[in-house]
């Protein structure tokens, strides 16, 4: 069996990244769009950790922690906006969210 190298991890990360991008670009449901963004961030994290392993230092892992922080902040604000929007327009479809001001 082929030993697992950094390349394998990069392929998995690329697949997750593309799936996330597809989700962001095609889905209407905001919640799922936000989840797709989490998918993208996870792919990035996986890359960072794999590179950290490859170079034998921990900068990649530290960076992935920062990305996680960012993901948490993004999820909190994104879902907050979503709830505020849902209250006003009763919809969670992105293509109906087309007014800058309510």
């Amino acid at each position, binding site marked *: 069996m082929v030993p697992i190298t*950094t390349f394998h991890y990069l392929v998995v990360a690329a697949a997750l*990244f593309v799936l996330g991008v597809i989700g962001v670009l095609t889905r209407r449901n905001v919640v799922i769009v936000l989840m797709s963004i989490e998918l993208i961030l996870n792919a990035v994290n996986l890359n960072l950790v794999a590179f950290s392993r490859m170079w034998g230092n921990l900068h990649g892992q530290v960076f992935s922690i*920062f990305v996680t922080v960012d993901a948490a902040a993004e999820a909190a604000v994104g*879902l907050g906006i979503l709830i505020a929007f849902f209250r006003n327009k009763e919809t969670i479809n992105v293509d109906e969210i087309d007014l800058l001001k309510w």
Partner: protein
Amino acid sequence: MNPALNSGLNSAVNAGMAPVATPWFFYVLAGLAVVSGLLVITRRNAVHSALALIVTLLAVTGLYLMLYAPFVAAVQIFVYAGGIMLLFLFVIMLVNIERSSKDRQFNRMWPVGLAAACALLVLFVSAFVKGKALFPDRMISLPESSNTQQIAGMLYGEAGKMGEYTFAFEIASLLLLVAILGAVIMTKKKI
């Protein structure tokens, strides 16, 4: 690296950890991650998507453990699976998904989006094919048992010195604070 920490246990760790990280684990976890990632973006029901995303996150956590990054794995479980996903589920319950799951699921420009994503995929593939030689096939064994201490050293500083990322870390805490305030202001009915 702290020599005191390597006493006794460490040799056993390095000797014994290797057989656990077999290729089979990798393929199972990677397959799980990709399949459930696919489910995330295709399910009608947002709760199903969220559950699939949790599976993806846990699979990626397994990959982290295989990469000898236990602290990142713990953060992943703690923050992502326990915190952020709970938030998602909470919000899904608050908003009425009954209607939106009966709606059209993909927007009108989905062919364009799909094409763009495919272009991205092609880009990735070509980069990987062309640049495979650039990635050294090495996997440097990181000391797992002191992983947390080293990360802490980089984030908080060690032995009186500021760490490399201390300032960035403080900024990150500010970001979180702003995010908390933003979320509260956004969702509160009356402030």
